[in-house]
């Protein structure tokens, strides 16, 4: 197919990156969470990207193939007066690393912008092609 499939390719990348941004936002919001509904502290989540063929030899989009949970040990802080403290007086905080999340966020937003720019360029080229011969 012609350049129209650029919109599919870049569109899939934009939606995958926005999903990544969503996960980052969820992680950042839960930086100081003590215990979730299951009684466990929040585990940092990460999206996994995968290539999807979209017709044509080198026309590949992206999809989020899954969301993984980090198995880094929880941050344990000694605070016996805390309502969620365990028998030893320790409180389990989420294992989100805010620095990692910020880096992830910047990377995701840059990739998002890149793909939007690609779509804009493709659009203007297609519009110019439409005006061919006029």
């Amino acid at each position, binding site marked *: 197919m012609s350049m129209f499939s650029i919109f599919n390719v870049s569109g899939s990348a934009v939606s995958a*990156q926005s999903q990544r941004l969503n996960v980052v936002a969820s992680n950042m919001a839960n930086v100081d969470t003590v215990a979730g509904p299951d009684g466990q502290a929040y585990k940092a989540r990460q999206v996994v*990207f995968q*290539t999807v063929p979209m*017709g044509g030899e*080198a026309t590949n989009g992206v999809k989020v193939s899954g969301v993984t949970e980090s198995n880094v040990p929880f941050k344990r802080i000694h605070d016996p007066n805390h309502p969620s403290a365990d028998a030893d007086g320790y409180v389990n905080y989420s294992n989100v690393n805010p620095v990692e999340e910020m880096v992830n966020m910047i990377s995701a937003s840059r990739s998002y912008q*890149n793909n939007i720019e690609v779509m804009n360029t493709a659009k203007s*080229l297609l519009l110019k092609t439409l005006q*061919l011969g006029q």
Partner: protein
Amino acid sequence: MFAKLTAGLDFHSKALVLRAERQRILASNIANADTPGYVARDFNFKETLGQMTQSSASQLSQASRGLGLQASVASTHPRHIDIAGTGGNSTLSGTGALAYGTQSQPSVDGNSVDLDRERASFVDNSVRYESTLRFINGQSKTLLSAIQGQ
């Protein structure tokens, strides 16, 4: 005589098709800049265009010989695989020149997309696409004014 009239247009239209193809490949590379294990693709424009124009120049003479293959190999089932060099939906399949990009700054996840390189190629390719468009426009205007004679 009329075959020669549009020969220049034909060359530029082939170049335009190739530019569109390259634009799509570069868009795929940029889309997969964060996908683990993805290998960047690209092709040598000059070589591929050379092959395309050569094949079209010799198409008439070769039509009686082996090139009739393109028409004779028909995919009669949606799951048939295209034989390389017999057409298909990709204009590159006949040339087989799709190359893999190498890692300029190796990363642990095995992704070989260099975003700076891809973006530069993308902008370069879009400018060249536009210039090809202008060539076609100019040439067709010249032809039209010659035909109308006014």
